[in-house]
C-alpha cells in the first residue's frame, strides 16, 4: 500500500502557479526522487524505528510469561508455552500481596485526582476571569513554581510532616494536591479558560449569576477536555511517581507499587527476574490503559502547554 499523490484539484492549481513561475523566474524545485519510492523508504524506516522503540516493552511482556530459567536462554520472543507462574509467584513474593501495593497507589492517585481537579480549576478560574490586584505578579509566581525543583522543599516538608505524624500515611502525598501545588494544571486550565468566549459569563452575570455559579455551571462544563487532560496526566504522573513516595512511605504495608517493585532489586540473583518482570508488567498496565483511553487528551495537552 503506497500513499496516493495529493488531491488533484490542489495539484492542478499548483501546476498553474508553477507554470506562471516558470515564465517569470527560476525553475521550481522538484525532488530528484520519485514520490512513491521516497514514501516507501520513509515508512520502512518508521516501522523499523517503531519496532526498536517498542521491542523492549514487548520483550518484557513476553519474558514475564516464560519460566524464569528460560528468560535468558530462550532467545525466541514468543514463549513456547504461556506460563503464568511468574505472576502468581510475584504477587506473593514480597511481604504483602502485590494487590496491597496497587491499592495504596490507587488511593493516592484518587486523592490526587480529586485535589488537582478541584483546586487547580478554582485557581485557574481566578487567574483567567477575575480582576484582582496583583494578578500579574501572582500569575508569574505560579508559573515559576512549575519549574521549582521539588528538592528545595522536600527536606522541610519531611520535617513538617514527620512532626505532624504524617510520615507513613498518604497525607503528605495527597494534601499538597488539594492545595493546588501541581501548578502545571492551573496553567493548563488557564489556557483553556481563556479560549471560552467571555460573552458567556457576561450574559450569565447579567442574569444574576455570581462567580461561584459561573465557575460551576459555565466554565467547568465547557472545560471537560481540559479536566480530562488534567485527570489523565495526574493519573499517570502520580502512578509513576517514585521520589516522594520513596521518602514518605517507608513502612512495607504503606508501599506503593513502584516502591514495592524496587524492593525486588534488593533480592538480587536471576531467580527473581521472572516474578519481577511480571509485577513490572502489572504496574505498567494502568498507565498503558490510561494511554489507550486518553490518548487524544494527552496529545492535545502536551501540544497546547508544551510540557510532557
Amino acid at each position, binding site marked *: *500500500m503506497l500513499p496516493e499523490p495529493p488531491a488533484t484539484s490542489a495539484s492542478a492549481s499548483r501546476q498553474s*502557479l508553477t507554470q506562471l*513561475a516558470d515564465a517569470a523566474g527560476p525553475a*521550481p*524545485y522538484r525532488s530528484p526522487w520519485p514520490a512513491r519510492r521516497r514514501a516507501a523508504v*520513509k*515508512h520502512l524506516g518508521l516501522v523499523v524505528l*517503531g519496532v526498536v*522503540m517498542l521491542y*523492549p516493552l514487548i520483550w518484557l511482556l513476553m519474558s514475564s510469561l516464560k519460566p524464569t530459567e528460560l528468560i535468558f536462554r530462550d532467545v525466541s520472543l514468543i514463549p513456547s508455552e504461556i506460563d503464568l507462574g511468574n505472576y502468581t509467584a510475584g504477587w506473593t513474593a514480597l511481604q504483602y500481596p502485590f494487590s496491597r501495593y496497587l491499592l495504596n497507589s490507587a488511593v493516592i492517585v484518587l486523592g490526587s485526582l480529586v485535589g488537582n481537579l*478541584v*483546586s487547580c480549576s*478554582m*485557581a485557574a478560574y*481566578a487567574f483567567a476571569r*477575575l480582576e*484582582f490586584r496583583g494578578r*500579574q505578579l501572582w500569575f*508569574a509566581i505560579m*508559573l515559576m513554581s*512549575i*519549574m*521549582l*525543583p521539588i*528538592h*528545595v*522543599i*522536600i*527536606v*522541610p516538608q*519531611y*520535617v*513538617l510532616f514527620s512532626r505532624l505524624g504524617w510520615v507513613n500515611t498518604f497525607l503528605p502525598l495527597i494534601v499538597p494536591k488539594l*492545595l*493546588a501545588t501541581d*501548578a*502545571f494544571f*492551573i*496553567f493548563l486550565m488557564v489556557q483553556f479558560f481563556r479560549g471560552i468566549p*467571555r460573552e458567556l459569563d457576561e450574559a450569565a452575570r447579567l442574569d444574576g449569576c*455570581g*462567580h461561584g455559579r459561573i465557575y460551576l455551571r459555565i466554565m467547568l462544563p465547557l472545560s471537560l477536555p481540559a479536566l480530562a487532560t488534567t485527570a489523565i496526566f495526574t493519573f499517570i504522573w502520580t502512578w*509513576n511517581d*517514585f*521520589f516522594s513516595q*520513596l521518602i514518605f512511605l517507608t513502612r512495607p504495608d504503606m508501599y506503593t507499587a*513502584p516502591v514495592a517493585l*524496587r524492593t525486588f*532489586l534488593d533480592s538480587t540473583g536471576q531467580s527473581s527476574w521472572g516474578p519481577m*518482570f511480571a509485577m*513490572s508488567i502489572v*504496574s505498567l498496565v494502568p*498507565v498503558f490503559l490510561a494511554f489507550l483511553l486518553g*490518548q487524544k487528551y*494527552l*496529545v492535545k495537552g*502536551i501540544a497546547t*502547554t*508544551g510540557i*510532557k
Partner: protein
Amino acid sequence: MSVVSELRRTTRSADGDQPPGRRRRARGGDRPATARPALRKGDGRAAVVFLAPWFLGLALVTLGPMLASAYLSFTDYNLLQPPQWIGVENYTHMWHDPRLLNALRVTFTYVLTAVPLQLVVALGLALLLDRGVRGLAFYRSAFYLPSLLGGSVAVAILWRQVFGVDGLVNAFLGIFGIEGKGWVSDPDTALWTLVALHVWTFGAPMIIFLAGLRQIPEMYYEAASIDGASRVRQFRSITLPLLTPIIFFNLVLQIIGAFQSFTQAFVVSGGTGGPADSTMFYTLYLYQKGFASLDMGYASAMAWLLVLIVAAMTVVNFVASKFWVFYDD
C-alpha cells in the same frame, strides 16, 4: 503557548514602561478596547475564595518550606537534635566534597548530552511525520508511549536488564558476533545507558514539535518552492526559524527536568549511584545525604545549589536565545 513563552510575556510586560493592560491590547489580546479595566466590584473577594487553596499551598507547601530550607542550609541538622547554626560551612564544604563534585560532573554530562540528543531525535521524527504520512496516528502512538512509561520504576528495571550482561543489547550484538559486556555494571558506559533511556522518551517533545510544524502556513513552502528552493533550503530558511521558539522552550524545560532526574539512576544503580559513582546523579546524592545519612542541613544546601544551577542555566538559555530564537511578534 507554552509556560516559557507565557513567562517571557508576563515578565516582559511587568517590567515594561507601559501599563500591562495597554500592551496586551496592542497585541490584540482578549481584553475589551477600553483602557485598563477598573477592578470589578466583588472580584477581589471572589479571588480570595477561588485562590484560597492555592494561597494556602503556596504558603505552607512551597514558600514556607523554601524559607525553612534556606535556613536549614546554614545549619547542622539531623532531625533528632535541634538545628545548629554553622554559617556557610555546608556551602564551603561542598567544594571539598569529591563525591558532590563528581555528582555535578555526572549530572552535567547527562543533561548536556541527553537533552540535545533527545530533542534532535524528536525534531527529526516530527519532520518525518509532518505533512501527511499514512498511519500518522499509529506512529505517533508508538513513539509516544515510551515517554509515558519512561519515568516509571518498571521501565528502569527493564533498562537494567536490556543493558545487562545477558541483556537485549548484547543478544543483538551477538548476532553480528560482537562480544558485549555488562553496560550497566561498567563505570565507563553506565551513564550512557541512562542517556539512551532519556533519548528513548523523545515522544513528548516530538508531539510538541508536530503541533508547532502544523502552525507554519503551507503558503510559505509553496512560495519557496516556486522560487526554486530545495527541501533542505526550505527547512533552513522556513521551518527552522519558525520552529526556534518551540525548540527553545523545549530546551529550557527539558534542561530543568533533566537536572532533577532521579528514578532512572536510583533503580538502574540499585540506589547506590554506582558502579564507582558513575550514575550518581545530583538528586540521588542529595537523597542519600538527606534521607539515608540524615544530614539534612547539607541536603538543604545542596538543594539550593541545584536551584541556583537550574536558574543560571535558564538565564543563560534566555540570554543566548536572543541570538538564535526568532520571534515574529
